[in-house]
């Protein structure tokens, strides 16, 4: 609660600096609208912004769902089968070298202007962090636990499922946190390249029409959604993985 209060105070402080800056320099509102104008636009155009925001949120949520499922599955495959490691790991690294931004026009071409191409972009952008964090966790199981399992006569599959997967969940959790932070990027990129709805679309349109206050309002909504998503995910992870090392959760609290 205190940290929330602190965050709000910092936000209010920034808005104040912004307001003073706009008032003192007399910068025209089509370059930088004052925060009061932005909030006014946010309230006036709420009915207009809401459906777009919900659409973007849906894209982010679906992208996270697919990205996490796909990443989790890939990491398990890599950890379980040595040939998969030899053949797929290089592909995975190379695939990460191609920016999603460059792929977005292709995705729109393939999946159309609707929801699917944005979900695909968000999925792609979070696939790698989830896979690599989870796979890393799966590879670095405490040596002693593996020795214990070996003396106990564990089967490979059960060792993976009962030992290495739970041990890797903290790593998986940090991958999911990164995913929550970058998934909105994927969705917005998809909307920029080609869409007829969504916050990214609203921002482009408002920019073209010099409605910079609307653009900022959309940006504010997007930021609020992203931050809420991140903290909701973080809280859920800590709730379901109580053995998460403190250092990980502590760093995310800051």
């Amino acid at each position, binding site marked *: 609660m205190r940290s929330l209060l602190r965050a709000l105070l910092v936000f209010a402080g920034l808005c104040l600096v912004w307001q003073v800056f706009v008032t003192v320099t007399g910068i025209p509102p089509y370059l930088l609208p004052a925060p009061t104008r932005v909030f006014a636009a946010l309230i006036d155009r709420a009915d207009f912004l809401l459906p777009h925001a919900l659409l973007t949120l849906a894209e982010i949520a679906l992208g996270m769902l697919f990205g996490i499922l796909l990443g989790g599955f890939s990491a398990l495959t890599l950890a379980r089968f040595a040939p998969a490691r030899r053949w797929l790991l290089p592909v995975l690294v190379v695939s990460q070298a191609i920016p999603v931004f460059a792929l977005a026009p292709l995705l729109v071409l393939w999946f159309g202007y609707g929801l699917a191409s944005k979900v695909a972009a968000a999925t792609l952008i979070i696939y790698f962090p989830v896979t690599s964090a989870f796979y890393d966790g799966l590879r670095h199981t*405490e040596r*002693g*636990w593996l*020795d*214990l*399992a*070996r*003396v*106990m*006569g*564990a*089967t490979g599959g*059960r*060792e993976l499922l*009962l*030992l290495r997967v*739970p*041990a890797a*969940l903290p790593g998986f959790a940090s991958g999911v946190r990164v995913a929550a932070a970058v998934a909105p990027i994927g969705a917005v990129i998809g909307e920029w390249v080609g869409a007829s709805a969504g916050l990214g679309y609203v921002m482009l349109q408002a920019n073209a029409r010099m409605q910079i206050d609307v653009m900022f309002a959309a940006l504010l909504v997007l930021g609020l959604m992203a931050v809420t998503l991140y903290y909701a995910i973080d809280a859920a992870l800590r709730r379901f*993985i*109580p*053995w998460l090392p403190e250092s990980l959760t502590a760093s995310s609290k800051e």
Partner: protein
Amino acid sequence: MTTISDPSRSRALPTSPPAVSVHAARLDYGGTPLFDELDFSLAAGQWTCVLGPSGVGKTTLLRLIAGLEEAAAGTSIAAGDGRPLAGRVAWMGQQDLLLPWLSALDNALLGARLRGEPDPGSERRSAAIELLKLVGLGGRLAARPAELSGGQRQRVALVRTLIEDRPVILMDEPFSSLDSVTRWKLQELAVELLAGRTVLLVTHDPREALRLGHRVHVMAGRPARLDRPLLLDPRTPRRLDDPALLTLESELIRRLAGAAEAA
């Protein structure tokens, strides 16, 4: 935890435990041989203790018997009854190695779960609960390791080792991280519960070896050698104020000091 060597408390084994012999063991570590032509044996149904300066290879020897180290060709590790050793060994390491996401009870039952044995069911489960009660953790069955003290965690690890119900028990300084009172209690408990099994106890504490062991070796040199064992009378745990043991203790410390110089 007061009565000692009450036979009804130690879990009876279906067959008598085997002796274990290591013959002509060779193992390289960083280019130099840690063991070369090393011979060593565990007497059936007895506690064999190995003492030695750190780094001499005590832990490696134990891991070799546990099947956790690759020995060079020519090494033979065999059970006295001619049957394979794999699957008849339980291992207890220096750390408790409890899984932080499992309760004390589930940690104790880990082996059965990892082998995919049909649901540990009532029998093994109730045996584990009995043992946890016996070690004074009856009220902490559902506690996660993070909620337990170091001594309690080590007791869960002891129960996990026992519930495996293996005839050969390999213990690597299992009590070294505990305070002396807890260590004392756990030693008594281990003697009681492991009675009649073939036990290898690696330790750096001469008093622990004298208190618990039937045969005590000192390991020294590189490549490492084991001296002739000190044979002790079979009643354990012993009282350490026995003057005969005090003499033996100074003898052991002398040997250990010699071993440390040779290393």
